[in-house]
């Protein structure tokens, strides 16, 4: 048995039990020291967020709503009563809810399969599942257009077209967010002790009842975290809706982009940014309220010991259906994408790939060969991951011990970048970080900083449930044996959350590679990232540009898959001691 929490306990002190020695213990430590430690841990993330998030966003909102030194709030009422914008708001909300529900419905069985079943090629499949998440939204949009749009695969085969319906958007959102659920929920699920469910079965609960009564409540925080992430992503969806939605469907983010980039209507964009911000705040409050009521210390075990080969027809059927879903929903669009990157004007070949290496000509889209975007992207993503892991790791460590309103507010603050328009953030960087002492416009670090902003919430959300599930008495045992608080963290928490940390780092790396909305504003012309390069190519007419975009996307996909596979490898090697 690992990490045993006692189940039968004749001699427990009632006083101790009532106050949950495992978790409550720290709360009763000398209060001053605990608070000081926590504040110290929060300092770095806090400064990071104030400088690189709150300040730029406040600046751009101020720029939109201030005129001649006074606030123009009349604009707010005007924008909010516009029926067109109300329609945008309504659509944004319901498509996000529908996308989230659909994603959970399709991906939760997948999370179970990845957590509990052992089968050949699992590591590869796990990486494959994560690839869509890191693709630039514009590429996903194009891939789905190629799949379900006019002249697409389904149109060719059966004359089915979905690009005029909302289904194309919803399916693309599932494609995108499948990994969020599988990784966030599956990560915790794989560490849950199956014997808890067995105990419920022995006590007379049916298979489903045992799952619902024992496993589901334990998973609830992770499910809620995943659902919130999916909802925020789809609520602020940009590239996909822009391409698949056509003129009929627009989310707030798309509208903000239109108002900013197309009409230069900063006041309207500022109001919409605030509306989106308010909606996200509401969601986060709801999330915090539900999670606070459900989180509990869990019994975690070595993940490698909970997975086994499927047994019986039911389990094989579940595995098979999951594989079919992955094949149709996740792999097929990618295959179409790859196929297109090779489909040159004179049959299949490497035409587009060769074009990528060509030095920039006078009429070229770029001042550098497009392929250099690959190295830019990798370097940016590594730096962004490092920042996100440090900032997010510190934040998660500070939040491990539940606290009062201050701590919960900090928790919510860390989630805000997911809900605030990336377009706004990128534009805000440009207009706010341009004066000494913070003149970063020419700095290489501007891009990784913006990308890390989106990575931090992932790190926090992935690590926090696992950190909180670590049995507090293990920390106490270490302290009694002479470990300082820092040593306790290094010796007890870190080894138990190493897996979560790697998953978090993988996510941060992935979102940094795929980040588009902010990067497109701040990446300098001679240092484009892959998504920016793809978007620029797509924005130009001509088969060569489209083909090059597909080829570049394929390269990005391969890079991501490679990086993620390496991550899986690292993890497997270490499970021995975990």
């Amino acid at each position, binding site marked *: 048995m690992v990490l045993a929490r006692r189940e039968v306990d004749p001699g427990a002190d009632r006083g101790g039990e009532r106050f949950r020695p495992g978790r409550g213990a720290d709360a009763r430590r000398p209060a001053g020291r605990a608070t000081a430690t926590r504040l110290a841990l929060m300092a770095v993330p806090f400064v990071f967020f104030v400088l690189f998030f709150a300040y730029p966003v406040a600046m751009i909102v101020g720029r939109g709503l201030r005129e001649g030194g006074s606030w123009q709030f009349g604009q707010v009422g005007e924008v909010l009563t516009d029926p067109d914008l109300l329609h945008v708001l309504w659509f944004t909300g319901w498509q996000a809810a529908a996308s989230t529900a659909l994603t959970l419905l399709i991906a939760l069985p997948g999370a179970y399969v990845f957590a509990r079943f052992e089968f050949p090629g699992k590591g590869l499949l796990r990486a494959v599942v994560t690839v869509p998440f890191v693709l630039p939204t514009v590429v996903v949009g194009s891939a789905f257009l190629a799949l379900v749009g006019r002249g697409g695969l389904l149109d060719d085969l059966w004359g089915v077209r979905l690009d005029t319906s909302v289904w194309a958007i919803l399916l693309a959102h599932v494609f995108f967010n499948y990994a969020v659920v599988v990784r966030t929920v599956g990560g915790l699920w794989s560490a849950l002790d199956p014997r808890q469910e067995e105990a419920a079965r022995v006590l007379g609960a049916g298979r489903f009842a045992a799952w619902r009564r024992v496993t589901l409540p334990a998973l609830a925080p992770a499910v809620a975290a995943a659902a919130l992430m999916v909802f925020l992503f789809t609520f602020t969806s940009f590239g996909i809706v822009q391409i698949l939605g056509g003129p009929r469907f627009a989310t707030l983010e798309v509208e903000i982009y239109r108002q900013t980039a197309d009409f230069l209507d900063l006041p309207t964009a500022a109001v919409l940014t605030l509306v989106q911000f308010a909606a996200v705040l509401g969601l986060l409050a709801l999330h915090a309220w539900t999670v606070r009521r459900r989180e509990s210390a869990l019994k975690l075990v070595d993940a490698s010991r909970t997975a086994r080969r499927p047994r019986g027809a039911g389990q094989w059927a579940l595995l098979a259906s999951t594989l079919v879903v992955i094949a149709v929903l996740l792999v097929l669009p990618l295959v179409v994408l790859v196929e297109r990157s090779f489909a040159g004007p004179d049959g299949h070949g490497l035409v587009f790939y060769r074009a990528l290496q060509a030095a920039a000509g006078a009429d070229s889209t770029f001042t550098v060969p497009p392929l250099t975007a690959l190295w830019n992207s990798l370097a940016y993503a590594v730096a962004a991951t490092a920042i996100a892991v440090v900032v997010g790791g510190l934040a998660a460590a500070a939040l491990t011990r539940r606290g009062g309103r201050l701590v919960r507010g900090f928790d919510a603050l860390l989630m805000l970048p997911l809900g605030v328009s990336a377009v706004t953030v990128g534009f805000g960087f440009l207009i706010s970080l341009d004066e000494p002492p913070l003149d970063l416009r020419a700095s290489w670090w501007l891009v990784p900083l913006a990308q890390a902003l989106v990575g931090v919430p992932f790190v926090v959300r992935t690590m926090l449930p696992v950190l909180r599930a670590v049995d507090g*008495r*293990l920390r*106490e045992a270490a302290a009694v044996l002479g470990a300082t608080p820092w040593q306790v963290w290094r010796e007890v928490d870190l080894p138990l959350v190493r897996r979560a940390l790697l998953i978090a780092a993988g996510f941060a790396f992935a979102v940094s590679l795929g980040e588009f909305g902010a990067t497109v504003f701040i990446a300098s012309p001679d240092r484009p990232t892959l998504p920016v390069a793809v978007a620029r190519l797509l924005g130009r007419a001509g088969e060569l540009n489209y083909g090059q975009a597909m080829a570049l996307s394929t390269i990005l996909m391969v890079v991501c898959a490679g990086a993620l596979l390496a991550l899986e490898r690292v993890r497997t090697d270490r499970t021995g001691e975990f």
Partner: protein
Amino acid sequence: MTDDRTDGPLLRLAGLTVRFGAHAALDTVDLDVAEHETVCVLGPSGSGKSTLLRVIAGLQQADAGEVVLDGRNLRTVPTHRRGVGLMFQDHQLFPQRDVAGNVAFGLRMRGAARAEQERKVAELLDLVGLPGAQRRAVGSLSGGEQQRVALARALAPSPRLLMLDEPLGQLDRGLRERLVVELRRLFGELGTTVLAVTHDQGEAFALADRVVVMRDGRIAQTGTPLEVWQRPADEFVARFLGFDNVVPATVTGEAADTPWGKVPVPDGTAEGACRLLVRPAGVRLVPAREGLPCTVAARTFRGTHVSLRLRPAAGPELDAACALAAAPEVGERVGAAFVAEDVVVLPAGN
């Protein structure tokens, strides 16, 4: 640590109080533990004994009172600098480390050299009867083996005071009895000062030089196991030790008036109202008309003796112990006579 302590106790608790809301888990507890002494705190669930250990370890803040170890007040000393050992109730071995990693943990935290760690680990594993177990995963250990590893881990940094929380709580009976003997020998050899808490009187009596009985956060009685066993301080302690033959009584001369009739009391007992405990061994079976007439209500074979539940015509039921050969059957009518040596006078009221 310089030897600045005088002849005072190694551990001194003075007025220790911990409140959880309105409930006092510890209520002005005073306790001294001398060097090399093994003290066992005995009490039912909720009596505050685990809280006591947590306060001494610094895992729980006391609302009032002091913990003085080796002449040093520990009020401002954080857990990791207190130099005490605590063996948790369910061991709390680190799942990600093997046996050696667990045992060496405290040494590593103190920056001990690797060779020193390895030497000490090997020595301790020998001591607890698990030689060569260094590389085993803690998940593969049986309950008893985990117990031994937890003990070795607590002993490794040579704590001034070793605390054990229900040390044998989860083990089966045979193993417990063996381990109690081993622990006793071990603590004697090492000269360790031990403070253990348990709800099991057998464990406490076998392990301890001195037993402290706790009730609702207060100390009800301290004494050697024999003293506590022979002279429970009050009805609570008596009942907690398993003695249920307690009745109200009024002492006059050499006997007391009880619901069971006249019961002889030891010489020199003060006259007046009191409670009276008759140990089961002090209830002797005689022919029905020679003593208190009773019906045998139940009979339980205990290995060395038979314990009987007797139902008298008047007064509460009473427990008796007798040899197997002499044991009556259920339903038989017998007489009960009382032996003064096994009668204990307890304070009235309470």
